[in-house]
């Protein structure tokens, strides 16, 4: 079989059209997911029963349904139910944010609970308040503990943006599919697409490694 591999290079600029969309959704989605994840994760560690259960329901729903269904539901079903118009970019950000938030919540909860009990006791025995113990002693250590899994989740979410093609987000995968239907160069274009994701994820994991290294104890 003959492939026109030069088209792989030619296809790159077409994909770059979708890069901005991909990155916007990933960056804002992950940021939203981080905030939601910290809040839900803290709620899962809280003695407040209401917060604990709200976070539990949220995590249960997200983990119990596929991202693709969540995206479709957010973009098509909810606007119909509530009678409003949700543009595709915010819908994509919300989908990635809500989805990654649930997984990040579990990462946050796990990290906080694995900080040694002796650290709380040492803080208590010095007369520190609960707030001072959590902010000054527990969270900084929990953050270091959660970095590897957090990085992993960031990479998963970055790749998950490709699923948003189903709601018509004009991100990279969408652009690639469009390019294929125009040129029929399936192998060349999808190779370019895979390489683009590989490049993005490699970059992100290099940045994460760096942060992890700097924060090592």
């Amino acid at each position, binding site marked *: 079989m003959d492939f026109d591999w030069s088209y792989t290079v030619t296809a790159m600029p077409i994909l770059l059209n979708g890069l901005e969309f991909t990155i916007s959704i990933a960056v804002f989605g992950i940021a939203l997911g981080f905030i939601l994840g910290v809040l839900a994760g803290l709620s899962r560690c809280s003695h407040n029963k209401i917060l604990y259960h709200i976070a539990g329901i949220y995590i249960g729903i997200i983990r119990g349904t596929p991202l693709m269904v969540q995206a479709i539901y957010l973009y098509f079903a909810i606007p119909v139910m509530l009678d409003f118009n949700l543009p595709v970019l915010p819908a994509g950000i919300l989908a990635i944010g809500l989805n990654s938030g649930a997984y990040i919540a579990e990462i946050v909860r796990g990290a906080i609970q694995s900080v040694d009990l002796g650290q709380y006791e*040492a803080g208590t*025995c*010095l*007369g520190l*308040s609960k707030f*001072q113990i959590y902010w*000054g*002693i527990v969270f*900084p250590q929990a953050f270091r503990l959660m970095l590897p899994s957090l990085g992993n989740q960031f990479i998963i979410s970055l790749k998950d943006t490709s699923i948003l093609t189903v709601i018509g987000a004009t991100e990279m995968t969408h652009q690639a599919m469009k390019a294929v239907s125009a040129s029929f160069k399936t192998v060349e274009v999808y190779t370019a697409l895979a390489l683009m994701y590989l490049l993005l994820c490699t970059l992100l994991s290099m940045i994460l490694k760096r942060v992890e290294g700097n924060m090592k*104890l």
Partner: protein
Amino acid sequence: MKDLILSVKNLSKSYGDLEVLKDINMDVREGEVISVIGPSGSGKSTFLRCINLLEEPNSGTISYQNEVINQGKYNRRKLHREIGMVFQKFNLFPHMTVLKNITYAPQKLKIASKKEIEAKARELLSKVGLAMKADEMPNNLSGGQQQRVAIARALAMSPKILLFDEPTSALDPELVGEVLKVMKTLADEGMTMVVVTHEMGFAREVSNHLIFMENGYIVEEGDPKEIFAHPKNERTAQFLSSVL
């Protein structure tokens, strides 16, 4: 006789059906050094942890400076500022430098100006022989050094009483001496101390009151040298002969 600073009366503690402390009584006077010894599982550490309410006693009273602390609305944070604790596993804050470990609580609680707190921390570090280690991270120190930092950290709050929970049990044998030396210095300076320990040399030579516990009871107590030489209780005699 010196002033009574801490008094434990009829203290009991159980976890479910398991009674770990039964009718414990103890008086601590200013400047006194009390050693608590006994076999593992005898309740020594639980007893110590009840004193600063890390464990909640089931019954009995603990009075600090003539105020009952384990009932009603006693200000626990004030109590913790005045009763310091040194742990078996040091429990230093691994993400802070040695100096920050010592200054963190005093600065958060604003017990003095920032400058004074840091000056005092450096002074305490030289006292425990670690002046050069101020900017190190705890994980770069040996166990003995970490425990000496932990002692300096507790001292930075200027506590009235210092509790030690098996402070040398997690250390390599050759590092035990440096920690005991610091503790002996504190004792000589008049610090009031309650020490749960397996170091019989310290219990005999440094402390002025000895408590032997077994099965949650205080089986025997009194002058350390007297008990080491002539234990009255059979179990005390057995224990001492097996550890000495």
